[in-house]
């Protein structure tokens, strides 16, 4: 469903994404992992067409994004890592606005909005300005609005940050249900237990380059790591912990 081919993004002399290629099959929950500054957010923003790649291609459903940008945007629901919403709109007005951006309106949107707000327990706050929302509530509102236009692909950056355990569980169930019905999710996360438990396939990147890709089994086989947990695998692939540094920190 998502094909990333030789993708490069440079900011001046700094290369954030370096010749990255991977494929997310349809109906898959795909985990996108990497240390801070690895290039995950930049890649996801390029897939959502917020950033322009320096070179390389992104194909959605086999079509390059530059060929039919509007059609492809219509297929995607993007959930950013920072929940910036319009402070002076109410929650309901915000969801309605996002649905309209994707060309949807009327009773269908109202019904779907009510369902989504109910799922995320935002109904009591639906008619209040979002400036009075907490970080987690804003995050839930953005997630709800990304589902409002029934996208075929969800690109989601760090969805669990700021969510309470119940909401995190709801989101996990939602993603699994969505994937079970044929949807595709590309999700970046630092919570390795979630990635290990939820994702069908995982890609690990560092310094903008792909380190490993596949199912948990394939990743273990690639790195000949036996029954290692994703955390151990991730740490080993990305350079591990520097225990000497820790000693230095706490020595007087």
């Amino acid at each position, binding site marked *: 469903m998502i094909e990333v081919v030789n993708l490069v993004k440079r900011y001046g002399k700094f290369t954030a994404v370096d010749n990255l290629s991977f494929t997310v099959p349809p109906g898959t929950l795909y985990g996108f992992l990497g240390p801070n500054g690895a290039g995950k957010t930049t890649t996801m*923003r390029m897939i*959502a*067409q*917020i*950033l*322009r790649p320096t070179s390389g291609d992104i194909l959605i459903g086999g079509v390059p994004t530059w060929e039919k*940008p*509007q*059609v492809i*945007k*219509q297929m*995607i629901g*993007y959930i*950013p890592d*920072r929940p*910036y*919403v*319009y402070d*002076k*709109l*109410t929650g309901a*007005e915000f969801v*309605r*606005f*996002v*649905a*309209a*951006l*994707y*060309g*949807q*309106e009327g009773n269908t949107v109202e019904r779907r909005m009510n369902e989504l707000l109910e799922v995320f327990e935002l109904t009591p706050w639906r*008619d*209040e*300005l979002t*400036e*009075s929302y907490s970080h987690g509530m804003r995050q839930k509102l953005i997630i709800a609005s990304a589902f409002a236009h029934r996208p075929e692909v969800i690109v989601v950056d760090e969805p669990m940050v700021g969510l309470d355990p119940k909401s995190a569980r709801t989101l996990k169930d939602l993603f699994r249900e969505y994937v079970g019905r044929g949807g595709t999710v590309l999700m970046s996360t630092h919570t390795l237990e979630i990635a290990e438990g939820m994702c069908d396939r995982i890609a690990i990147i560092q310094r903008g380059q792909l380190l490993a890709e596949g199912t948990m089994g394939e990743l273990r086989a690639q790195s000949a790591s036996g029954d290692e947990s994703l955390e151990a695998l991730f740490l080993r692939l990305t350079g591990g912990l520097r225990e000497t540094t820790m000693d230095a920190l*706490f020595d*007087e």
Partner: protein
Amino acid sequence: MSEVLPVALRLPPPQPSLGQLLTPKWRGALARSRSEERGRGARLLLFALVGAVFWTAAFGICYRVLRYVSTQEIGVLLASKMLGIIFLAFTAILLLSNIITAISSFFLARDLDLLVAAPVHWFRLYLAKLAETAGHSSWMVILIAVPILTAYGMVFDGGMLFPFVVIAALIPFVLLPATIGAAVTLVLVNVFPARRIRDLLTLVMLGAVAGLALLLRVLRPEQLARPEGFQSLVEFLELLRAPTNPFLPTEWAADMIMNWLRHVADPLPVALLYTTAGAFVILGGWLHGRLFRDGYSKSQEGSEKFVRGVTWSRWLSRLAGGLSPARREFLLKDVRLFFRDPSQWSQLILLGVLLVVYIFNIQSLPLFSGEEVPFFLVTAVTFLNLGLAGFVLAAIAARFVFPSVSLEGRQLWLIQSSPLEFSTLLISKYWLGTVPLLVLAVFITVVTNLLLQASAFMMAVSVGTIILFTLAAAALALCFGAYYPKFNTENAAQIPTGFGGLVFMMSSISLLGLLIAIEAIPVGAYLRAQQFDYPFRFTPLLGLAGLSVVAICVATTVISLRLAVRRMQALEE
């Protein structure tokens, strides 16, 4: 871990210096000034040029006035009085801006969580934030004061040490309103939530400015220039000798400077100024120690839950029913955000005052009150009025249309990732800004032309030009707003105050100048026809002039909008 000292025995950590606390601020300002943005050289050059022109003009006017005054017998007295009045005006501005700034720097700034959570002593935090508030609120006033005080120094032979005397007078002078502003804010935040306070104060400030502008206009200061205004010279001199108010620090600061210039050794104003400023800082610090923690805690709780404009939103939604859902919701969103943000809609109050003052000025012109004024002069004034109205409209476009792209700010990701075309977004923003501007433009032009008893020809020329100019100026505002966005500004009123706003104003004024220069051809021909009493005929030259005006305005509108779309497409947050 090594031996752990019981908490009760531990000493507080060494405190950071004021310089360290303020490092992020001055480093940030330095980094911003050094940032290698596009066109930085041109930007600096333009700012330097505008600054030099302003300073030269302010210095020139002050120097001429003071030079003239100094030759009179009551010269020094008058100069002293003028300085007192200037300082009084500065204090009024400083008080208002310090209160507004103090709310941000003491209660809403993003670095506060970090500072409040750190073991920084409250008095040190107070001093750092006071310095920040005073700096933010006072730099513009000080920039304005420099040419004025330079003129004082030069006319009254201040000598080499005069700048140091001025600096010594200005430090406590700007510190006093800052301490008062911080204290007032502190008390208010303890009573109301900070976010509501800022809204309230924005309104109070606008009301004060609007009231002052109206008062000044209604008092008709031009009448003071008439000799019959002075009833008694003795009374006038008495008024000059007496200080405005001996308890006002503005008077002490003015006295400190004037005493130096008059070579009078009087330590009283210096002592009063410094002891009062010192006492205010200490009292302010004490108040901060008592009230800040509660106030800061309260300021974190207050956000608006009241939703304004639900009913009219529905009406507008029905009215815009013919538009596509994306266009309609985008339009509604912009209207809602405007009327729910007091820093935005409250500007309409100023706009109303500006309009009243403008029309009042036109009505006050002595064109039809005394001797008969030649038709030529009336037409010339009508033509000039077109230029003035155009300038006013450009300024309004700068305030309301220019910021519209910047206001998408951090939500730009939403638009960029949605299938909404940028052209749709910009066209929506364009018409939302242009339609009210057009109504205003036609209203100003028709009303003032009626007051000026303009002929039908001049009315047609004025209304036609102002409509075309408004269409072009709004497009220019949108274009420059897209090229020079400020995505991180919280206050919409600050967006057009940067380089982009300046370039927009210069471009639209140049456009206006060009239109007026071209229209001078038909207006000149019309005037000659009226003067020599022969019929006014349409000639190819007149047609060409009219067509040129239309072509220039249409081209400016279309090219600006296209450039804005292209710029939006190239924007990467």
